[in-house]
């Protein structure tokens, strides 16, 4: 009973944050709603017993990736979205379409999913056991993702760097 109440509480905060992300017109409000969604998801992970994943969700996703989003919104001085013809058409077709789509998905999942039940704290994920898996069975993906992050860092630095002073000199020749 307590599990159901806590699940519905966190789930309501998740859905409210997701809908708020869609409704808000200024990107900074959308970013902060997404942070709220991630916090509520961390609560859901704790309900399922995944304590390490929940903590990492808060540290990495809500505490680093979303800070990056907030930085970019602050740097580029993003303003309120304008309503153009394209956005009105998208709203007209998009919202009913997705409401129908999400109701369909939820109905299929709720009625035809079998009878699995999950207890509170069903699969405790202590850091020790996750580390065992990560460094024995999943060692190759782990190393590959570290190379991926290195490539991403190099790409981001190159893409976001200001164009150098060499080009105007070439044009003058």
């Amino acid at each position: 009973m307590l599990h159901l109440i806590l699940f519905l509480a966190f789930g309501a905060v998740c859905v409210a944050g997701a809908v708020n992300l869609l409704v808000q017109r200024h990107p900074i409000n959308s970013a902060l709603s997404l942070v709220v969604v991630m916090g509520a998801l961390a609560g859901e992970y704790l309900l399922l017993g995944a304590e390490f994943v929940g903590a990492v969700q808060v540290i990495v996703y809500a505490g680093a990736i979303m800070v990056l989003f907030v930085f970019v919104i602050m740097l580029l001085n993003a303003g309120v979205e304008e309503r153009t013809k394209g956005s009105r058409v998208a709203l007209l077709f998009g919202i009913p379409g997705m409401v129908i789509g999400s109701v369909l998905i939820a109905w299929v999942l709720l009625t035809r999913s079998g009878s699995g039940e999950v207890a509170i704290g069903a699969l405790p994920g202590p850091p020790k056991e996750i580390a065992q898996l990560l460094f024995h069975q999943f060692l190759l993906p782990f190393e590959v993702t570290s190379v991926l992050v290195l490539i991403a860092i190099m790409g981001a630095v190159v893409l976001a760097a200001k164009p150098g002073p060499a080009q105007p000199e070439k044009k003058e020749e």
Partner: protein
Amino acid sequence: MVPLSYYLALSGILFACGVTGFLIKRNIITIFMSIELMLNGVNLSFVAFAAHWHALSGQVFVFFVMVVAAAETAVGLAIIIAVYRTRETLNVDQINLLKL
């Protein structure tokens, strides 16, 4: 005891909200945030199934999704900054010419 389908339905709703945001929003950064919302919905699905099948690999896979999301965010935001420098706008409807 919460049925597994409730977790999956919540994950599906989050994913659907992400797709909706991707389709109806016109600001490039908000579109990118909807992608992150989709990834979060999928993460919830992974953890719920890991708890259901008592397989810790589901939780490990969430790490990989998070790392890939972080890398994609870094590169994507750098691209957004580069696009903003040339086009001076963040509205996708106005970024529709190959050459200015």
